[in-house]
């Protein structure tokens, strides 16, 4: 009788309790163990990431290396992104006269992305991917070439894409979470040591008016092929306010981008403004 009580019948086969437990455990544990053995741990993306974006030859990789080595390092066109982890000490001003000791901040990552038009999707998908961290975006531009129309168009085109991506990220985040913070964007006007460099105030105006014109022509332009099949495709077509072609930094705050413009020069090492912007982002 006792024997019978410790047994069940499954599909007509007598099964004892310990055997059942053991087999169940085996069924659960073996896949877990196997995956441990065969699957390398998925990399959890770093949590505090600054994104370095901007057109080609603006100085993204140079800035990354400047933070690391404090010197100007020769670079060529990037073809792949690179992420480097920094300690908060990297953001200390080069001439720290005021002996402030708030280096207790978190370490952060800086992700450099290629600026070639064909590879810009790397940066843009990083922004729109809401699971990836992005606590701030540095859009580095070459302030010496903006007086030439083709380069200005190229720069603004990319900036437009970045702002659209920010807008998309912001709208997705604000739907899912209750409190959404603006995504800080620094337009870092590099190479202001050059003779032809424009001042940051002028660049700011130039970019805003050019963005406005671009928005206008994009609205007037032809539809995308396949538009309408995908609803979100239409959603991210227009940057900012639907009713006006005017784009100002103030207006874009509604759409998730907190924009500031600062001049600097990696060559001269005058990037303290950018650094303090980054440490502000870290503190926020």
């Amino acid at each position, binding site marked *: 009788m006792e024997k019978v009580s410790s047994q069940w019948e499954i599909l007509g086969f007598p099964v004892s309790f310990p055997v059942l437990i053991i087999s169940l455990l085996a069924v659960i544990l073996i896949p877990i163990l*196997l*995956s441990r053995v*065969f*699957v*390398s741990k*998925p990399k959890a993306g770093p949590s505090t990431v600054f994104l370095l974006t901007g057109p*080609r*030859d603006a100085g993204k*990789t140079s800035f990354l*290396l400047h933070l*690391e*080595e404090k010197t100007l*390092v*020769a*670079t*060529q*066109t*990037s*073809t*792949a*992104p*690179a*992420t*480097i*982890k920094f300690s908060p000490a990297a953001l200390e001003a080069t001439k720290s006269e005021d002996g402030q000791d708030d280096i207790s901040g978190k370490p952060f990552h800086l992700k*450099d992305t*290629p600026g*070639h*038009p*064909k*590879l*810009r*999707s790397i940066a843009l998908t990083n922004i729109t991917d809401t699971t990836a961290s992005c606590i701030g975006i540095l859009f580095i531009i070459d302030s010496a070439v903006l007086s030439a*129309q083709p380069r200005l*168009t*190229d720069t603004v*085109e990319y900036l437009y894409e970045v702002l659209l991506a920010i807008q998309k990220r912001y709208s997705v985040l604000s739907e899912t979470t209750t409190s959404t913070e603006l995504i800080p964007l620094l337009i870092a006007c590099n190479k202001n040591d050059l003779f032809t460099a424009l001042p940051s105030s002028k660049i700011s105006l130039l970019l805003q008016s050019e963005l406005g*014109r*671009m928005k206008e*022509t*994009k609205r*007037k*332009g*032809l*539809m*995308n*092929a*396949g*538009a309408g*099949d*995908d609803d979100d*495709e239409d959603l991210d077509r227009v940057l900012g306010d639907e009713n006006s072609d005017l784009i100002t930094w103030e207006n874009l705050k509604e759409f998730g981008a907190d924009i500031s413009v600062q001049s600097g020069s990696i060559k001269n090492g005058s990037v303290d403004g950018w650094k303090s912007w980054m440490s502000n982002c870290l503190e926020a």
Partner: protein
Amino acid sequence: MLDLFEVITTSGVVIWSKSYAPVKTSVINSLISDVFIEERTQPGSDGKWFKKDSYTLKWTLAADFGLVFVAVYQSLLQLTWIDELLDQVKKLFIALYGEKIKNSKGARIQCHFDKYFDSSIRSLERRTGGTVATPPSNAATATNQVSVDGSRNARDGDEGEDNYEWLEPPPMPGVNPSDKTPSRPRNHATDTSSTTPSAIEASSPSTPATGPPGMVAQALLQVSGRRGRPRRSKKLAGHSGASSAHASSGEERSPGRLNGKPKRGKEMRVWGDDGIAADAGDEQKLDYSGTGGMSTDEEYDESMRPRPEAVDQKTWGTKTSQGDFVLKDLDFEIDGILKQAKEKEAGGETRNGASGLASGLAAGAIGYFKNFVGGKTLTKEDTEKAIAGIMTHLLEKNVAKEAAEQICESVQKSLVGQKTGSFQSIESLVKIAMEDALRKILTPTTSLDLLREIGQIREGEKRPYVISIVGVNGVGKSTNLSKICFFLLQNKLKVLIAACDTFRSGAVEQLRVHAHNLKELSEREGGVVELYEKGYGKDAANIAKDAVAYANGQGFDVVLIDTAGRRHNDQRLMSSLEKFAKFANPDKILMVGEALVGSDSVQQARNFNAAFGKDRKLDGFIISKCDTVGDMIGTLISMVFATGIPVVFLGVGQNYTDLRTLNVKWAVGLLMS
């Protein structure tokens, strides 16, 4: 001479560079963006070289380390050893810094590669009999130091030997190099009888016949390393000077070897540390020298002369640690590294064969599991099947065979060495890589905002914006022209249509109908359209020129020029396009291509792209009849891939409104579905 050599990471950091003459960074930048990013090879280069300005660039990739090695030199020079240099530097660099680079994760690493590079390049140049990096002044000082005996020795050798002689320390005076000829056959004999490959012997030719004590010791070491190895395998050594140098070093070392057995033991230890020639036993060496020495009487005579062995030992040790003979040590080191790299390559193959049955089975089982679970490092063989599958898929989507093959090849290249993710099959990995590749191909590199450009030209230069449309017969040039015209009229622009198809009857009338329709349609919108026609039989280029002048005078915003359709492989018709481009000087030349066309699309695109002369290329494609092919839009890929020119518009129907811009995401989605 080489102008510049750079080692660059894919993230754009110049890890190491050596520049002999100033070269603009834009030269290498254009290599990277043209060849690596846009994957456009220059005609005739077969992807092996790249010409920019007056430079020729050659490169080699180390994909798993994310490194690019680029050599830049003047195109006028025929440098035959560049490939070898690249290969050698790549091996050296990876052996020295490969681990460091892998661990650094994008951060810059410090490397002191100069001396290795200098040494490599010098030996290569020496071998090919080219110019030597050492300036003449250096040579002069060297000859000053050389004693009577030494200089005689130098003169004995050929030019190659002469060259390395500069780099040598002065030979020890008082030691007479004996006649070389008798010993040479012996040396040769040992070399040919040998079987195992060696890189160490590479530096042996630089050993002079008569050297200071340290040199003799080194010579001995070299011989011990070289012994039993074929000479052909050497990477570094100058071939020209090799044989005589071998001979001379052979003579010199024989007495020392005969006399001092303990010394040999010490040498072996040193080399064991370096991982080179450690396997050679003492007895063997003795045997060797014995037979070698016995073979000729001259060498016996040599051996009678007393040798300062004690000094040999001491200097040997100090020399290596202090690096007095920098070049010498470096050569050894480089040879060692290269040899290791080669052994690693060879080892990989033999290990597969030699592994036991059990371990082979276990590896096989793990590999089998990894196929499902992921974490497998891909080899070319692994991807073969999936690539073949995706290639068929592309061909089914009407991608031209030529383009499909090349795209698949580059995708396969990019996949080798990658790891599959957790529970990711090879197929899905290949699919993702292919999507990336297609997206990269279709993504334009310039702004395609036509309205913006027209506005800029109007504001800046106060002249009409000229667009001309070319293409094969019957692809829809006039239809698409009128669609573009309608789009421009919607934006309140003043458009002049120039009828430059003066060949096909009815072409002008057709445009007249379009112009009439468009005028009616756009009257309310505020656009103005006019037709500029000069009948049939006239020269199209002249009409186009006149039309532009007329538009300029009348204050038109845009001139749209329709041209006669022409077969892309008809030289006579295509040649008139060059004149046309010169006369009309259009801001945009758009080529209309049918989505229906199959493998001919590649040639069409190429021929039209080349038809406008040296300085003018197409500016964009209009792919017409997209509505008739469904998701088989492979022509898009074929044409863009063949030329690197973006798709500006898609024709998706018969109405004036059926014009679209390309959405890369949509196109890639269709192609991969």
